[in-house]
């Protein structure tokens, strides 16, 4: 009676440690991402959430521990390599070029060029990029009327949507979102949460870092709780409650290992 072995997790972080000088940011972080799930990482300030996702997105390097993709150990040296693994990150500050339009931001660093010989001189195929940007916005149900207005003139939620659209357009497997609603109002936050569900329905996995537990409970499938640089527990949303998670974040509620 041999059950088929379960498929390896999409991404796994094992016993990851990270120091900044004498400060220990991560002591023992463990994290497993399944395909096609929205996985929230929660924790109090200084729990190591940002450090963990920056290691996954190639911004920081772990001092020790292991990152595996599809069960194979990998090293992610920089954000460019993370992208080669199909991992895209939406940074908290969005990293948009305000004076470029949404189409320009979507393609920043990956511009589509006109056919040769114009491509030899770096001539941009603006029309094709605009068309593709429009398709992308439609696919994600993002309500931006014109993709050729500078993102400076967009609302906070729309700017977030552009940053998310960029991540999804290029992310083949994993989209990381760092506090995606931190700077947004209530209505705009709900728009972004819809967007996260939309990303999952397109077949990608989402890692979401958030302070906002009601939002986490609204969209996440699983929740990993970090405290003082350690993974406390990973839970299915259905088997826990907001109060329990708060207790685990603060250490008021002990977790049976």
């Amino acid at each position, binding site marked *: 009676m041999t059950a088929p072995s379960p498929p390896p997790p999409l991404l796994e972080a094992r016993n990851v440690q990270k120091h900044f000088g004498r400060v220990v940011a991560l002591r023992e972080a463990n994290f497993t991402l399944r395909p096609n799930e929205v996985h929230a990482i929660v924790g109090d300030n200084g729990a190591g959430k940002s450090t963990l996702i920056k290691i996954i997105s190639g911004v920081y390097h772990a001092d020790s521990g292991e990152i595996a993709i599809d069960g194979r150990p990998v090293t992610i040296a920089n954000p460019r390599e993370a992208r080669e693994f199909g991992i895209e990150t939406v940074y908290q500050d969005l990293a948009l070029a305000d004076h470029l339009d949404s189409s320009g931001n979507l393609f920043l660093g990956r511009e589509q060029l006109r056919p040769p010989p114009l491509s030899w001189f*770096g001539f941009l195929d603006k029309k094709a990029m605009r068309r593709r940007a429009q398709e992308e916005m439609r696919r994600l149900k993002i309500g931006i009327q014109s993709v050729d207005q500078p993102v400076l*003139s967009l609302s906070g939620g729309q700017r977030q949507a552009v940053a998310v659209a960029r991540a999804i357009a290029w992310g083949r497997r994993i989209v990381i979102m760092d506090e995606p609603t931190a700077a947004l109002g209530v209505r705009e936050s709900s*728009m972004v949460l819809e967007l996260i569900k939309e990303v999952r329905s397109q077949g990608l996995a989402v890692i979401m870092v958030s302070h906002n537990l009601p939002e986490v409970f609204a969209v996440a499938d699983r929740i990993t709780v970090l405290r003082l640089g350690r993974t406390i527990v990973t839970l299915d949303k259905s088997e826990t409650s907001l109060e329990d998670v708060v207790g685990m974040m603060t250490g008021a509620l002990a977790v049976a290992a």
Partner: protein
Amino acid sequence: MTSKAEVESVESEEAPHVGERTRRDRATEALGRSWLLLFLIALIGYFWLSTPSGTFLTWTNLEQIALNTSEVILLAIGETFVIVTAGIDLSIGGILFFSAVAGGEVMIHLAGTSEQTINGQYPHSGLAIPVGIAVCILAGTTWGLINGTLITKLRLPPFIVTLGTFGMTFGFGDLISGGSYLPSPVPPALSSHFGNGKILGLSSPIYVAIFFLIVAHVVFHHTRFGRYTAAIGSNQEGTRRTGIAVDRHIIKVYGLAGFLAGVAAVLDLAIFTNTTSVSHQTDNLSAIGAVVIGGTSLFGGVGTVLGSAVGAFVPTVLQNGLVIEAVQPFWQEVVVGAAIILAVYVDQVRRRRANR
């Protein structure tokens, strides 16, 4: 949890608001872009009416104005790219001077012995001129690359680096030339065939300025190079995170400004047959003034090459008109100064609108 319907209603409520804001932005932008051209046309109109007929608005005089502006236009093109990256280049006048001295000395020494050249004989002009031109351009590009490298690799503010190279270029240039004119003028063939030469009735150097203006305009608005320049000025860190080699691009942009200063040095030698540091001390301010008056934001991210060219004409038209009117030409400095303040004010208002 929010339903789709709710999300859509969020969008539809925001939609007219956003549209309205953009329309107003576009109107402000269009005004910001066109007020300068209107100002220049009004200025030309004013001088046309206030000077005796046949003095200001003649082909010869307008051509002279264009010729006088051609060097500043080249400098202003490079400065536009630099300022759009949210940088500044104070050294381009110095680079122009150094390149002109370096290229000029090479031309003179290759063209004949010092006895020959002092007596106005240049037996080897055919070799000396192209080599000298190459030296001008190479020297300019090199200084530009030095600027860019120091700014990116040592992480120093562009203002400080280019203030330093501003001093160094003038110092080295004067060391080479002995602090005065070159020992003899550059080979006269350079000015007779190029500097004072004409193509279809228009002075040849003007074509050089127009050529680089068109190329730079196309590069700025239609190529990846221009796109990266604006992106870096808009959000340097964000651009870096998208995987763009930001440092390398910044070095290229300062290299471009140096290259164009080198080309301007060739024009300088061709038009005036000689050069001195005194005549280039304030070229950097002329170029920066032209860029700012032209509507490029000092904060980076947005700019216009053609605007900078129009901006370059404001001082020269004023200078020329006031001289013909026999008014103290010092008024030119006053008016240009006021125009710079006004231009930056317009830019600030535009930014405040956009950020609201």
